[in-house]
């Protein structure tokens, strides 16, 4: 993976770089920021996260499983009392609710990991430890012949350091 990494001190300079890079051919732009920032998110204009679907599907699966397991177990020993149905849905709703929350929450986390591509323990290129402190980074994946133009764009936008990696 080859590219150019620009380091910025200010958020508006970072946003200016993102907007300028949109007008250039490159394979991909990744922006690093110490905290989430709406102006960066607006400049990137990425689609809404699909994590919500994981939460919905996980919650529905958990709810179904939460009803199924006590009903299945009740029917294993069908002791009829007073002619009433053996499965009792009101207390089973408690189990169903708890499992809906549990599996919904775990699916949400799975959705986060899958979509954010975590875990990824290879901190090799395109990152700087200062991005978790107070500075911003723009990593542009590009071909070697495009690197010069990208470097120029990043510098013009206000990058304090630009380096080609690897």
């Amino acid at each position: 993976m080859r590219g150019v990494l620009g380091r910025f001190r200010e958020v508006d300079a970072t946003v200016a770089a993102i907007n300028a890079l949109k007008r250039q051919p490159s394979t991909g732009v990744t922006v690093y920021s110490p905290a989430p920032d709406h102006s960066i998110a607006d400049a990137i204009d990425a689609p809404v996260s699909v994590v919500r679907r994981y939460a919905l599907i996980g919650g529905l699966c958990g709810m179904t499983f939460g009803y199924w397991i006590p009903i299945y177990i009740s029917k294993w020993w069908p002791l009829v009392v007073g002619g009433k149905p053996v499965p009792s849905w009101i207390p089973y709703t408690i189990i169903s609710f708890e499992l809906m929350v549990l599996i919904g929450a775990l699916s949400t986390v799975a959705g986060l990991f899958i979509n954010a591509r975590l875990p990824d323990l290879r901190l090799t290129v395109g990152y700087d430890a200062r991005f978790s402190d107070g500075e911003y980074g723009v990593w542009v994946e590009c071909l070697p012949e495009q690197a010069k133009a990208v470097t120029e764009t990043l510098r013009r936008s206000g990058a304090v350091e630009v380096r080609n990696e690897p």
Partner: protein
Amino acid sequence: MATSAPPYPIAGGDGAPRPNVATGDRRLPAVRDYEQVTREITSVLRPTVAWFIGLSIAILFMLTGAGAWMYQIHEGLGVAGYHPPVMWAVYIVSFVFWVGIGHAGTLISAILYLFRAGFRTTIYRCAEVMTVFAVMTAGLFPVLHLGRPWKFFWLIPYPHWRWIWPQFKSPLVWDVFAILTYLTVSATFLYIGLLPDLAVLRDHDTNPVRKKIFATLSLGWRNSDREWRHFARAYLFLAALATPLVLSVHSVVSFDFAMANTPGWHATIFPPYFVAGAIFSGIGMVFTIIIPLRKWFGFKHYVTLNDLDASAKLCLFTSMVVGCAYLTEFYIGWYSGNRIEHEFWWNRVFGQWWWAAWIMLICNMVLPLSLFSQKLRRNTTWLFILSLFINLGMWFERFVIIVPSLSHEFEPWQWAGYQATWVDFAILCGSFGWFFMWFLLFVKQLPILAISEVKEIVPPKRRQMIAAASVGVGGGD
């Protein structure tokens, strides 16, 4: 964490930069930039002599409790003061107490997050950590209460050769599901919120071993736009899922009592009454922990008096809900016209258990009324003292619910007394030791304030700010 709410304008009416997230009007005037946040919050992670002393005391308490438990396993549950009809006492009281303590964490981190309450930002990590360790502590008590504690897993439905399953219509089985779900979701919520902070520690720690541990725990988090986008959405949904869970868990715990046909227990008021009490006691414990911490760690400019004031208002509100529940119980007891109910309530408040009932009423209903005074809400010494009374009062609330009901059921021949033994007290002290041991270990290994969330409310650097700063420096010269 970032939300999908529309951003603030870049500059407010006064031209000053504004925070980039919708967290009310929360500002930290003494915090200038992101680097300061990282530096100050990570600087307290070095162990000190006072911390070692505190940790040693906590471990000593825990070992005392563990020793008492071993003695109880050898001698039997009788050493804990159990004799018919009082077969639930200090252990179940402590179980409900610790589950209750665990409620404020998720309330503050999830519910107040959804409500965009800005004051939660600097206290929520502490409350979340408290939640996880309090629920871990609570989970010990049903096991301690078993005659054969090594058989605790019988409550979990798993297939085995005799095809015998737990009874899903029993509140005790509901409890297992509720508490395990709550523990798992709370711990997950805490860990997910910690990911960006673990990356900060990975990037700033100089010790290679710790660096490697933080690198693994942070899962390679790099603060990229992709990560933040999915993280914000995942955090929002975790908060949305945790919110009804907060309300459900203590409702389920209250069913342990409300489902039984015992005087004082069989009441529909129990779920809301328990939930309000849990949140009240949890906020009390948050004060007990955060007030000394902000002083020792020098975090007064993060956990400000405004935050404590806002939390104290929440404490006052929940105290009044709890007080209303107490009075409603008394009123319904009187209005029922039932002689057994009259006799039971009279015995609880003026008879055999008057001392416990009045500790409860004074600590939970009367003393918190002082929080109507803004001066006292902003007085940290008073808030700390009050929080100790609240902890005491809420433990006694559970005692008053459990022991008087069991010792004074319908038939007079069943009436009895109850005397806690040294084993009960040793195990109760051990539970505090266990809780504080984990908490103290946490505060010196991981950030007790959420670094990335605090950064969200600090205005980011902009070109105009840098330019203005350099002009200012130049002018001064």
